[in-house]
């Protein structure tokens, strides 16, 4: 189960899907007091086990990527488990199958590197003093990766998008509302 996050809600309607990165050091499972979050042998961090989860929300606070969500009505945490019902029987996760631009891609690191020759897959993230490696890769421009082979998330939080002046000229010129009575 994935969810969409707004990038800059005050100024834009742009959203980004939040998929689980399937960390090799899952912080959500580390902080779970009920021992409910487990990782299967194929490296997929599963949703909370229903008999164990107490819906305390520790995982929501701890996850550096903001993936888990607690559903108060059902008293359980649910997160992206790479569509385990599909991937375990040889299908792609739903998000990757429906993504029209293949921004979400399901395959090996080699395959995605060949499909996108200008970028390099990266799976190492730095959160202050915490280093995390993930099973899910993100594609980074090669120029950046050669400088630093990991994503420094806390440093990137300070980055702001470069402001661009956009001027929209109405079709035909002039005031488009000239004929409108007010």
């Amino acid at each position, binding site marked *: 189960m994935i969810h969409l996050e707004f990038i800059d809600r005050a100024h834009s309607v742009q959203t980004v899907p939040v998929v689980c990165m399937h960390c090799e050091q899952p912080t959500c499972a580390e902080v779970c007091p009920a021992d409910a979050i487990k990782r299967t042998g194929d490296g997929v961090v599963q949703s909370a086990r229903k008999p164990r989860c107490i819906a305390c929300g520790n995982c929501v606070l701890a996850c550096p990527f903001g993936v888990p969500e607690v559903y108060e009505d059902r008293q359980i945490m649910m997160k992206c488990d790479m569509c385990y019902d599909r991937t375990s029987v040889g299908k792609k996760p739903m998000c990757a199958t429906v993504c029209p631009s293949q921004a979400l891609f399901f395959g090996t690191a080699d395959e995605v590197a*060949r499909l996108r020759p200008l970028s390099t897959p990266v799976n190492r993230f730095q959160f202050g003093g915490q280093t995390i490696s993930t099973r899910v890769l993100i594609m980074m421009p090669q120029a950046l990766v050669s400088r630093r082979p990991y994503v420094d998330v806390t440093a990137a939080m300070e980055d702001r998008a470069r402001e661009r002046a956009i001027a929209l000229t109405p079709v035909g010129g002039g005031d488009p509302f000239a004929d409108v009575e007010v």
Partner: protein
Amino acid sequence: MADESQEPIDPRIDTPAREGLTGTAPASVYRPLRDAEQVTIAPDWRPMDVQPAWRTDFPIDWPQDHYVERRDFMKFMVLTSLAFTVGQFWIAAENWLRRRRGQPQMRRVASIDEVPVGTALTFAYPGEHDDCVLVRTGENQFVAYGQKCTHLSCAVRPLAEQGILQCPCHEGSFDLSSGRPLAGPPRRPLARVHLQIVNRDLYATRVEDRTT
């Protein structure tokens, strides 16, 4: 990383060369994991041998969470069967103690005149928490039963006009004249309290626990 020797793959989704990307590829295509039983790395990136012991007690990996050692299994079996054995001795000791205590003392319940025909009276016998119910069914007919329903020990209530004792918890009913179950979940009759009339006074003499 990109391998120059391989053909670039067609980026369209449904091309034959991309069959592997739909998940139908053998597991060997994907980056292999170090050990399927131990895929998780501790947050400090040090090996599992130098991690504190609680990390092995509360593993994050599913296979280890489900793993039961032969020693743990044997410990569980031995302790459980030991508990059952001790329980058998406990039951035997309880029976022996009860037989040694013998029957409780005869005790006055009420005067006959306090219980008109068709009415009931509750009393405690033999202990103060063993509630019983006394019903006068006729001019010279008295019955008394323990009030505990034999299903789940709810208090039964006498319905003299219908000739039953009813348990309100699960609608069980007992025959008023014999205490035997008539309907509902109870299978055993109520404990019968034997009565004796001396000088127009009712005395409870003993409690008879019945199984059939």
